[in-house]
């Protein structure tokens, strides 16, 4: 049954997964080409100078992409469940409900994280060939909150999609907007290092909101 659930979720999300992966890699390659252009035109030392003197990491084009990937995967996976209330059928499967929801979220989270890891590997891999490890880690740590925002966005979107009433969807949407804004408030490099652990705990707790939406749906809170 677990395999069947995984396959069902994969069928729902595979198109968006590959599209998001393609866009994520394309944007990462674009960022790499941009850096390479500067390297060719002005010399690699110019990149070091800008990174150290201006705190510029050359990855601004990646900034909003993880957030959009998280939202897209969340909608692709959960919106069909609410189409003609198909979630009812899913919940009637002969499978423990908690594990069912957990497996559904696991598929989405794995897909989102695979996209993020591949994108970060492209950026980090290129940087590691032109700058010292201190600067490569600085670039990746600067991007890490954007990836955490993407994961958090995925979980919040699943909670919003599985919610049965529009009133609560609007409330969840407003709360989600406020929460996701926190990840983009400070643009200085490595500004979020001190709250990474807090953000991870927070993301884990956010899973409970998806369960809440499912419980409410089962209890009949539906428009």
């Amino acid at each position, binding site marked *: 049954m677990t395999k069947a659930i995984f396959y069902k979720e994969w069928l729902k999300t595979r198109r968006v997964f590959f599209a998001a992966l393609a866009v994520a890699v394309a944007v990462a390659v674009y960022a790499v080409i941009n850096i390479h252009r500067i390297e060719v035109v002005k010399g*690699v*030392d110019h990149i*070091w100078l800008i990174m150290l003197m201006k705190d510029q990491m050359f990855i601004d084009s990646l900034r909003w992409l993880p957030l959009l990937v998280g939202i897209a995967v969340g909608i692709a996976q959960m919106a069909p469940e609410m189409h003609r209330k198909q979630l009812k059928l899913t919940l009637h499967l002969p499978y423990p409900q908690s594990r069912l929801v957990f497996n559904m979220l696991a598929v989405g989270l794995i897909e989102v994280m695979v996209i993020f890891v591949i994108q970060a590997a492209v950026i980090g891999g290129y940087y590691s060939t032109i700058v010292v490890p201190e*600067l490569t880690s600085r670039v990746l740590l600067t991007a890490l909150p954007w990836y955490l925002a993407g994961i958090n966005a995925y979980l919040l979107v699943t909670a919003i999609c599985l919610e049965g009433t529009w009133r609560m969807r609007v409330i969840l949407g407003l*709360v989600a907007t406020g*929460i996701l804004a926190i990840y983009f*408030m400070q643009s200085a490099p490595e500004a979020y290092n*001190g709250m990474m652990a807090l953000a991870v705990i927070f993301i884990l707790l956010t899973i409970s909101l998806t369960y*809440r939406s499912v419980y409410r749906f089962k209890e009949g809170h539906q428009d």
Partner: protein
Amino acid sequence: MKRFSHIFLLFLSATVLAWFLPWIYSFSLPDATREPFVAMSPVSGELVFTMTGDGKPHIYDLAGNVYTKNQRDSLLPQLYYRDLISREELPDTIDGREVSMPLLRHAEMNYTSSPREINKRTADVYLMMESMPVRVDLEDPKEVFRFTGEGVEFVDMVTDKVNPTRSERFTRALSDRGFHYPAVWLNANPTTRKSYDEGYLIIDSEGTLFHVKQQAGRPYVARVSMPDTVCARYAFILENTDRDYLGLVTDRNDNVYFLMRDGYRLDPLPVGKVSPESDRIAMMGNLFNIMFRFSDDSGTRWRAIDRDTHRLVGSYDFSYTAPVQSVIEDYLFPFRLDFTAHTDSFAAPRLTDISWHALWLNLFLAIVVAIVFRRRHRSAVCTVSAAAVTVLAGVFIFIPLIVEK
């Protein structure tokens, strides 16, 4: 799980509101507090104040005299010498000192420091310029250095390879001068937009100050001898046209010193306690005096010291008074949640502006919550808990409790 997720959603909602409501309040009602620009007149020996913002500047001194713009120019020739020259009013001498445009320009010195630039995460590699370039103009740095715990390692930026010769030379030079690893503070200005380079001021783990630069590829390391009671905390390199001053230094007791180039002498400044971590610092020097402006959330302190003797010749304190919208805010919100601050470059949750004045509104809201919860037939425990949390978190939790049924 259901109860936990509901409480968690209430917590999330309150968190967002505790950030958003005070922010939108402050954003909608900006503080219009203005403070004067202050300068010391070498002509009258008095501080001259310029208050702008009402269309035309109000210029005055503490004796109650009000000046026109032209009178202000004459009182502050060190700032407005170009206007005076255009009107052919620049005197030949002021206070027995020869005055001319080149002399005034040469004596100008400026420095600013912001807590945001100090309270931030820096890369653990640092640019090193060549202080004695082959040609006249300075060149961009070609290497960076890092502290390895036992020494210094230089890395070529083009090849990304360690330069063992330079690393060994700098490590030996620092060790010979008694440097204790790790370095706790470094400051330099590695840009070519200056006339000369003085490299780095570095403070070691024991609070000793070192001057380090690269001259013709070789290390120049000088240990600054300081009194036993002084441990340096911050040091800022000054590279002004007038080369008398090498740096501005603060110690662990927040005293301020000039580091003079001549003999690496530390000259204490009578400007009071200053903490670069929380105080914005602006220094404007001229032929006659040096003005310091230290500002934090409570106000601004202006200190004028004599250029030659470094004695205090004028001071002015400007305290910020809370505007009416800030007073009202204290009665509306029990606290505010910020994730950023103007004094640092970190993102972290922090509760600020905790106000007991909001307790009255909180109590009222708690009563409303209790009534609403009783009408919704909630249990007594649930009702009391909700009311108690409302007393503490006020409007931030009141809205979610009422809206999220």
